[in-house]
């Protein structure tokens, strides 16, 4: 009767392990934020690396993408890919030319 759904049920340990990893990474990212004299760019790189790591295990384990079909992979990948396009192209523009003057905002 419930055969169609039982096949998708994963062991509790999958979720427990994911939670422990997430909490460990939370401690790590807060600790990394307090290391003295880290250059600004490096702090951003460390924070973003850990954030991407955390997001990936949430997507894979909690959101079940690891066990999903190719279409779910395509969608999850597309979201990430489009975000990268937006960031890359926006930055390519802003870092490569002077900013337009904005009324009331002295340069």
């Amino acid at each position: 009767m419930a055969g169609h759904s039982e096949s998708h049920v994963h062991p509790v340990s999958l979720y427990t392990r994911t939670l422990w990893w997430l909490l460990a990474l939370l401690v790590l990212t807060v600790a990394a934020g307090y290391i003295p004299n880290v250059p600004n760019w490096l702090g951003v790189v460390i924070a973003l690396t850990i954030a991407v790591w955390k997001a990936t295990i949430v997507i894979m384990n909690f959101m079940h993408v690891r066990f999903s079909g190719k279409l779910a992979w395509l969608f999850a990948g597309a979201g990430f890919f489009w975000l990268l396009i937006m960031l890359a192209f926006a930055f390519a523009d802003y870092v490569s030319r002077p900013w337009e003057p904005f009324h009331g905002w002295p340069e």
Partner: protein
Amino acid sequence: MSVQEIEKTATLEHTGDGHHHGDGILGEQFETLEQQNNAYLIGMWAFIVQEVLFFGAIFTSYAIYRYKYVLEFTLAHHELNVWFGSLNTFVLLLSSYTMARAVRAAMQNRHKKQAIYLFLTFLLAGEFMLNKYFEYGAKFEHHLFPGGDYSAHEVVKHAKEKGELRIVEENGREFYELGKTRDGQFIAFKRVTPEEFEQRTRLFFGFYFIMTGLHGLHVLVGMIVIAILIGRAWIDHLKNKPIADYMPVEMTGLYWHLVDIVWIFLFPLLYLIGR
């Protein structure tokens, strides 16, 4: 299964086609339950992708302005409470776990367990919002909300105490020098007028309130949906329903994890970097 339910099932079932329209879960436009569930999931993922881009656009503009006014933004960063941010991250990560367990219970048709895990998720979400309430309250109290009475006074005060800002006078005009104190010596990186400093820190708090506010709105919407699911699961439990559609819980779970992921990025980018 009661006699009535079996009768109902028998009348609804397409005779001999081997499909499970009978349990009231499968819509008639779908061939199999698997096909229906996949259609649900893809729809939900399409929504999630647009949410990623929606938040992504705000993250992009935040990144661009932080890149341009990195010193001003860094000093404004210091006004945020890392303790509150960490606590809220912990609460949201935990709520993602309880949500995943609720989905698991739903897949097993364990309605009571599902209702309990959903309720825990709801409580954790409430705790998140409560923390936000206190956090926002403190910002309003210190005039850091970018509204009519915004003032960078607190930012200037704390930056001066930490030796990262110095007030200098030149030709009777006041300037702020932003920099660092090393071995008792102030090294200036940039000089700004008090008005510029006020506008740029105000911009930071604008981003802070927009980003955390929109995220908080998503948490509130999630809480409403979760409350409805708790009611449904509890009714299924009371009625001893042998089988219920788990997809609403699974899809709400996907939404809830997305809300968690947005916070996973908001937390370090607003609270941690530049410390």
